[in-house]
């Protein structure tokens, strides 16, 4: 039973355009959500997070949106750059728990 789902295994966008990566979850007990970026042969790098008390968090080119009623979050990257090409993982944690539950990832390719 996958509690965190990233239904798009891959996404391709043009440089300068917006990239939108989506994530759905099933466990209503999750209250903290994170996005990680992963390059080949490297560990995941923390990108941005959001608490369930918010519906939006912005950091530079990256914005995460949370829709609790739909159990859906998305990561927007604007403008997209070729260096953003990587696998993006969505992760979630329950209140009081340090265990992260990860999705399977979406491979983003930003074409010059």
């Amino acid at each position: 039973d996958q509690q965190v789902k990233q239904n798009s295994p891959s996404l391709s966008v043009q440089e300068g355009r917006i990239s939108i990566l989506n994530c759905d979850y099933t466990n209503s007990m999750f209250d903290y959500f994170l996005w990680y970026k992963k390059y080949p042969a490297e560990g995941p790098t923390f990108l941005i997070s959001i608490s369930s008390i918010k519906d939006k968090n912005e950091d530079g080119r990256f914005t995460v949106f949370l829709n609790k009623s739909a159990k859906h979050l998305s990561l927007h990257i604007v403008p997209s750059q070729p260096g953003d090409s990587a696998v993006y993982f969505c992760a979630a944690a329950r209140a009081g728990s340090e265990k992260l539950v990860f999705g399977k990832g979406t491979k983003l390719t930003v074409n010059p």
Partner: protein
Amino acid sequence: GAGVSQSPSNKVTEKGKDVELRCDPISGHTALYWYRQSLGQGLEFLIYFQGNSAPDKSGLPSDRFSAERTGGSVSTLTIQRTQQEDSAVYLCASSWGQGNQPQHFGDGTRLSIL
């Protein structure tokens, strides 16, 4: 270095052998986590250490897997009598362990069981 360090970066061993994977967390981080990523899958939680508390071992897939953390710092993940399905990238992460703090990952150990 300032990041999480894991060794070895790659390990190839024969089925049935024991392996030890090492993790050096970020200095000062009290929480340490082990995950593994099998081919085409997301990261799967294995075990979590927080300070001097008993570790959360709920993610360990079998009793062939064990981990310890000495002196609240370095951790070793041991897999006994390895099986081919143990082949994966084993990732270690650390954090301040207080509330919603992001976990910082090492580059992982790629384990291949022949």
